[in-house]
């Protein structure tokens, strides 16, 4: 919903405009999203990405699900194919940005202090340090958290959520708001399947459906490369054709 076209007026709040104000007071009907400031900054970020023909992916998961390891493996696999940049979100340390830079791609670290998610303003600040003219694909690695990042649009084009085997297959049931809005679910650390027989992929998908998500699910291991092709093909399918990128660069 937005604050522009009137789609924030729903059957549930249509009667507001007709409600009389109590005597001695004056009622102002607002019907504006409380996160309007974040949303307008997110739109600004998205325009910024689009102007540079850059595709942006917001990568979310609980802490330790393997987001940075997945990015390292992805950068290695797509080297020479796409120019990649990364925005790293963590409460503290520059460890993840250092790991990404070691792969030879630019990485901007956002340290949020005690904030448990990234918002559009933080990403906007980080974009000042990332030269989008030389990039095709930007990953925004959100703070490890399956709750709060779901509430903030960053200006990304797709949301990808990692669910690692050791976390258990019922995470979509426990964090439905996050899983409802994702475009792809990656079941990570698949190499641990032999020692985690209790993780049932079909059950994870069933919980995902109960959370209202129609996102495709791929299982993979960034450590040994199993299943990486499906993820890379999904990414390739999202990006504009190479010709379009080349045209934009001209």
């Amino acid at each position, binding site marked *: *919903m937005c604050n522009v076209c009137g789609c*924030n007026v*729903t*059957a*549930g*709040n249509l009667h*507001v405009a007709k*409600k009389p*104000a*109590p005597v*001695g*007071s*004056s*009622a*102002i*009907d*607002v*019907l*504006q*999203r*409380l*996160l*309007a400031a974040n949303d307008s900054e997110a739109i600004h970020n998205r325009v910024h990405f689009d102007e540079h023909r850059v595709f942006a992916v917001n990568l979310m998961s609980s802490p330790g699900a393997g987001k940075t390891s997945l990015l390292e493996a992805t950068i290695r696999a797509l080297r020479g194919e796409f120019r990649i940049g990364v925005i790293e979100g963590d409460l503290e340390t520059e460890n993840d940005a250092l790991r990404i830079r070691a792969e030879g791609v630019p990485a901007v670290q956002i340290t949020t202090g005690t904030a448990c998610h990234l918002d559009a303003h933080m990403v906007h600040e980080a974009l000042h340090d990332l030269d989008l003219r030389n990039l095709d694909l930007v990953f925004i690695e959100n703070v490890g958290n399956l*709750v*709060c990042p*779901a*509430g903030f649009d960053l200006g990304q084009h797709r949301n990808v959520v990692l669910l690692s085997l050791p976390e258990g297959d019922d995470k979509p*049931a*426990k964090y*439905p*708001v996050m899983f*409802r809005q994702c475009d792809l679910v990656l079941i990570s650390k698949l190499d641990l399947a032999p020692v985690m027989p209790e993780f049932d992929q079909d059950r994870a998908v069933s919980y995902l*459906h*109960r*959370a*209202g998500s*129609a996102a495709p699910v791929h299982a993979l291991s960034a450590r040994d490369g199993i299943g990486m092709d499906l993820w890379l093909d999904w990414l390739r399918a999202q990006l504009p054709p190479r010709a379009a990128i080349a045209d934009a660069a001209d």
Partner: protein
Amino acid sequence: MVNDIAAERMAMPCVVTVQMGPLSGVEPGLLARAYPLAAAGSPASSARLEIENVKLRLRCKMCDAVCEAMVNRQLCAVCGAWQTDVIEGAELLLKRVELSLQTQVHLHV
């Protein structure tokens, strides 16, 4: 937003109504407890926060039925399909601000 409206109208807010659904990612109880802290020192501190909880309602993509649902069981109540669209329940809106006509003030916000 509330403070902007108060400044614009030169009047103190007395009721702030927020409408929220279960997919908004915000807990009504926590918002109610946080409101006095967030509003402290601003015109909004004079207002009572009213929260209207919106139920999650879905439209089934398979049979077109409309039904209420729980956040972790977003299935069509008629045919059981999981392919649904959210009609209501993701809102996090400042719905209305009521201003007291008795207390006009000059505000610096």
